[in-house]
């Protein structure tokens, strides 16, 4: 998708299974909203094709549109209408007839915790309440497929949890959800995660597999009583790589932490090291994505530049394999 000669989204190929939550994650300006707008038919791709619910979004039939819900990134409702009136209007646009419309408006107002504020003008709602109102409008017609563009942006952590609770409930009802977010920690909430950087899909996998991809396996963090050169451990059969964090601390990447940890501790003792602690660690998704983004940039750059980027990203790093597999899905 080109904007003024620049590609906003390019070479993205992904398919989403019914009844799953796909999280589209990436930094601001990565192309997440553009991708959602391509999927909803608001934008036409410059090249390639998009199929949603088996149809070209540009040519959605009316019945298909009734099955789609959309929550835009920015507040796009009527400021002079109350919360209840806005939801009622959107429900009418989607063709909900009166009895069902009334019931659903009440339901979604309670779902997003806006029942008490149903009579307040949208302009008088706080930023977080406006986001919830947008969410309520996207949910009111019980769509089979939901596009949520940063639904949790600007709302407090408690409510964020409640929103995800509702999204999981929708998923349990067989709905398919595409959720964009800048909060990478929310990747844990998704069944599949697409990581987009500069308009390109650099990873698409389950959260657990993404973590493994970022680290190359399980991670064991080891602390020794005295200075220890961890590169000696790389020759062990389960060890993939070792990264020295400090003179007395290092991380060992292994195939399986459960079976490899005793071997690592034993090998360390044999080499004269005294272990203070050895435990499996899970990188935060911030670290996972930072690693994946850095690796993608390094892969795209020249080999010499790639090495320089790796050196800059972490401490001394000893690998058993010279190259890692591509993360591109």
């Amino acid at each position, binding site marked *: 998708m080109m904007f003024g000669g620049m590609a906003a989204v390019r070479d993205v190929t992904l398919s989403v299974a019914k009844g799953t939550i796909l999280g589209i994650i990436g930094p601001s300006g990565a192309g997440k909203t553009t991708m959602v707008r391509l999927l909803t038919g608001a934008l036409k791709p410059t090249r390639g094709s998009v199929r949603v619910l088996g149809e070209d979004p540009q040519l959605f039939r009316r019945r298909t549109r009734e099955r789609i819900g959309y929550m835009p990134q920015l507040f796009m409702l009527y400021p*002079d209408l109350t919360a209840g009136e806005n939801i009622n209007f959107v429900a009418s646009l989607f063709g909900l*007839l009166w009895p069902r419309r009334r019931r659903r408006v009440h339901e979604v107002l309670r779902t997003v915790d806006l029942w008490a504020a149903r009579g307040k003008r949208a302009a008088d709602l706080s930023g977080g309440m406006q986001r919830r109102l947008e969410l309520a409008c996207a949910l009111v017609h019980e769509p089979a497929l939901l596009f949520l563009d940063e639904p949790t942006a600007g709302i407090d952590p408690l409510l964020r949890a409640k929103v995800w609770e509702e999204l999981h409930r929708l998923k349990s009802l067989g709905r398919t959800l595409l959720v964009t977010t800048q909060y990478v920690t929310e990747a844990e909430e998704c069944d599949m995660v697409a990581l987009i950087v500069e308009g390109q899909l650099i990873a698409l996998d389950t959260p657990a597999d993404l973590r493994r991809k970022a680290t190359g396996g399980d991670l064991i963090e080891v602390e020794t009583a005295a200075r220890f050169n961890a590169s000696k451990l790389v020759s062990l059969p389960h060890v993939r790589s070792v990264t020295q964090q400090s003179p007395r601390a290092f991380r060992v990447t292994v195939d399986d932490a459960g079976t490899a940890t005793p071997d690592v501790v034993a090998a360390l003792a044999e080499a004269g090291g005294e272990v203070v602690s050895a435990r499996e660690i899970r990188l935060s998704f911030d670290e996972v994505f930072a690693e994946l983004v850095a690796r993608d940039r390094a892969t795209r750059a020249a080999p010499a530049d790639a090495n320089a980027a790796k050196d800059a990203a972490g401490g001394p790093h000893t690998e058993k394999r010279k190259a890692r597999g591509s993360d591109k899905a």
Partner: protein
Amino acid sequence: MIAALQTITRLLAFIGKELIEVRRRPGAIISLILGPFLIMSVFGLGYNGYRRPLQTIIVIPPQSGLPSDLSRYRDVAVGMDILQIAPDAAAPLQRLRSRELDAVIVAPPNLEQQFRSGAQSVIEVHINVTDPVQQAYAGVLAERLASEVNAQIIKQAAGEGEKYALAAGQQAVQIPPDVIAAPTRAELKNEAPIAPGVLSFYGPAVLALILQHLAVTLVALSLVRERTSGIIELFRISPISTTEVIVGKVLAFGVLAAAISTITVALLVVALGVPLLGSPVLLAAIIALLTVASLALGLFIAVISDSERQTVQLSLLLLLASVFFSGFVLPIEEFTAPVRIASYVLPVTHGIRLIQDVMLRGWTNEVWEMFALAIIAAVLLVATWALLRRSMTRA
């Protein structure tokens, strides 16, 4: 069946939404309903058509032989307030240039001599105005002054001739000098069903103008806000069609315009005494046509505007064009053909004539103007549909 009910639901949603938004702004309601009525009331009650007499000095040169008695000229100079008779023009002309006076009339210095020699004399009427309407008015007064003076001269000559004939022992013709001086006079008989009045004439015109302006502005701002705020994206994704959006807008603001028109017409007729000689049903039909054509124009402005500011500017330009070219101030017949054609593109041009005819004459012979309103509405709605559909399917 369900599809039809869903369409009705969408249309009703637009009507409800627009009416709620208007209701939320009490100031808007006051200005929408009371505004037009107050404008008409102030105009009707405040304008009486009175023209202040021109403050005038008449210069009678001593050698002219004309009387210099002020009272002799008061009846002759219609529409003028004769302040003084002066023997010389220099000082009055200086006062005229400094705008202390409206006019200076300079009598010919040798009127009798010129007359006897068979030559026409000139009465100079000096004015100092920049307004073409005032100049035209002064010209009319000058013509009338010349006629009056001529009549006085003929009357005087006829009287002297009659005396001379009688003195010579001849039979005089029994025709009074007044009749000889002015053998005819005009008497105006107006066949219109009502006596013309400022309020009754301009009231319906103001109604048409304000109705067009309100319809254009309200619907244009409503749609352009939806376009610029991004709500149009919701329309794009939802199952609503372009036709439903347009029909929804027309119905919503049509209901609003109908309420405003009903109240305004009632106030006009009951409170200001403007006659309604024609059928209220016909008047309602004309107002409905004018409203739909105006709404179509407003929707068209909204789809060609990039911002709310541009919409407001275009609406104001349209109002200005309507005041000048609709026949509201100046008769359409006085414009050149191309401008006249352009004026017929404005819904208000037809609205003013039709509403005035139905209210003040009871019927209209210009039925074609009703078709013209329908055609304007149809063409603009089709153009709006095409442009809006494009922006609803492509971003």
